[in-house]
């Protein structure tokens, strides 16, 4: 499974598709962190960055999963010893790509976005948000990949609308009905991210798990 994940990552890099998401991420980071935020808002800056990177991560995950021709996906499933392993390897590769881009976003925010180092506890909470962002991107990208939505137009609309829906729902009192992205930002802004983190992380994790489970179910249905 690891070897197959490496194969898919290699295809993603060698096909140069990786640059689409990378350039988009770099452009976004350059604009967002064009000037350093004043002291005292470090946690809020980091949380905002974790939310802003999600659609780019979803794009990266979708792009990675779509690099492989459909027929190669079948060959890979046979080589790896079953569809389940092929699906798992794809998700692992997509998460690895998202994790690298997410780490880049966090590092950029820490180096060029804030004026002071956040306290260790706040930094830990922010790092967790970036991991959750990577998971959210993986799930959204996987659910809009070609193996699930064959039409490119439908797929890209689903990705963007999915992200918009997450933002809208998480801005309301029904924020627990999705990955509560806006609630991450609100909590960080209000200074109670640390106290609300267990609740928000649990909701985020539950929806990511549900999204990934739905993807696995849809892929194994055939």
């Amino acid at each position, binding site marked *: 499974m690891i*070897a197959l994940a490496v194969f898919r990552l290699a295809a993603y890099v060698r096909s140069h598709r990786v640059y689409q998401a990378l350039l988009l991420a770099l452009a976004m980071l350059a604009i967002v962190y064009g000037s350093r935020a004043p002291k005292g808002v470090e946690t809020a800056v980091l949380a905002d960055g974790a939310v802003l990177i999600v659609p780019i991560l979803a794009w990266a995950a979708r792009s990675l999963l779509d690099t*492989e021709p459909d027929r190669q996906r079948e060959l890979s499933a046979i080589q790896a010893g079953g569809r389940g392993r092929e699906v798992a390897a794809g998700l692992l590769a997509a998460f690895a790509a998202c994790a690298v881009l997410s780490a880049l976003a966090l590092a950029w925010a820490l180096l060029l976005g804030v004026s002071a180092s956040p306290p260790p506890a706040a930094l830990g909470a922010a790092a967790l948000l970036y991991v959750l962002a990577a998971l959210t991107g993986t799930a959204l990208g996987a659910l809009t990949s070609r193996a699930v939505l064959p039409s490119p137009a439908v797929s890209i609309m689903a990705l963007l609308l999915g992200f918009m829906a997450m933002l809208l729902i998480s801005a309301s009192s029904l924020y627990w009905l999705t990955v509560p992205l806006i609630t991450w930002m609100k909590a960080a802004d209000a200074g109670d991210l640390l106290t609300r983190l267990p609740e928000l992380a649990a909701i985020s994790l539950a929806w990511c798990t549900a999204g990934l489970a739905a993807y696995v179910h849809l892929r194994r249905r055939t």
Partner: protein
Amino acid sequence: MQLTRVSFRYRKRDRLVISHADARLSAGNVIELTGANGAGKSTLLRLLAGLARPTSGVIADRPAVVGFAPDRFPTAQPFTVTTYLRHMSRVRGGARWEPWAERLGLGPLLDTALRDLSKGSAHKVGLVQALMAEPGLLILDEPFAGLDAGTRETLPLIAAELAQRGAIVIASDHQSGLRDLPALRHWALRDGHLEESASPAPETAGQVTVAVTLPAGDLPRFLAGVRDEGYLAREIEESH
């Protein structure tokens, strides 16, 4: 390996592509699968490979290691022949692909990008990735299409060797490339029904097979004409 009343349809309310197929495959069997275009050959091969699940019925006792060579190898991948096969070998836990590449004549093309390969050479890459892990079940979808003469002769030998070592080999084939193998089993798919026949069209003593080259557009008229004269005629090379 056992197929028990295996049926398959792509969507609910579609017609059955495979209808109540029963078959038993034993170690060492070599099977030639024939049928008209659209008869369901590729679907049956996908079911055997485990790529699709039967709508009803059961496929039991599939060998653990399956090799599958598709009719069209997916060349739209950013790898050379060597890097691709090296990756596939790692996925297979370090299977040796080099001897197979050598045997199928891929040696001079190892550094060629997959997307620059001719149809026949790409097909060989598909064969190597299917063969490398010593499969217990080898599935070949139209294995002879586009292959050069040397490989056409080698492939039946490879199939026979694998069968001798206890593998099941099944090939969908319009070209009777495996016809010289002893104890070859013949399956035919007609309208989704799987039938086993003793022999498809035996060549008796005194008969010869000839090859005729002609413009692709003339083919239907030519075949019809030859058949009208009472000769057995079939197309063996895909039109380019």
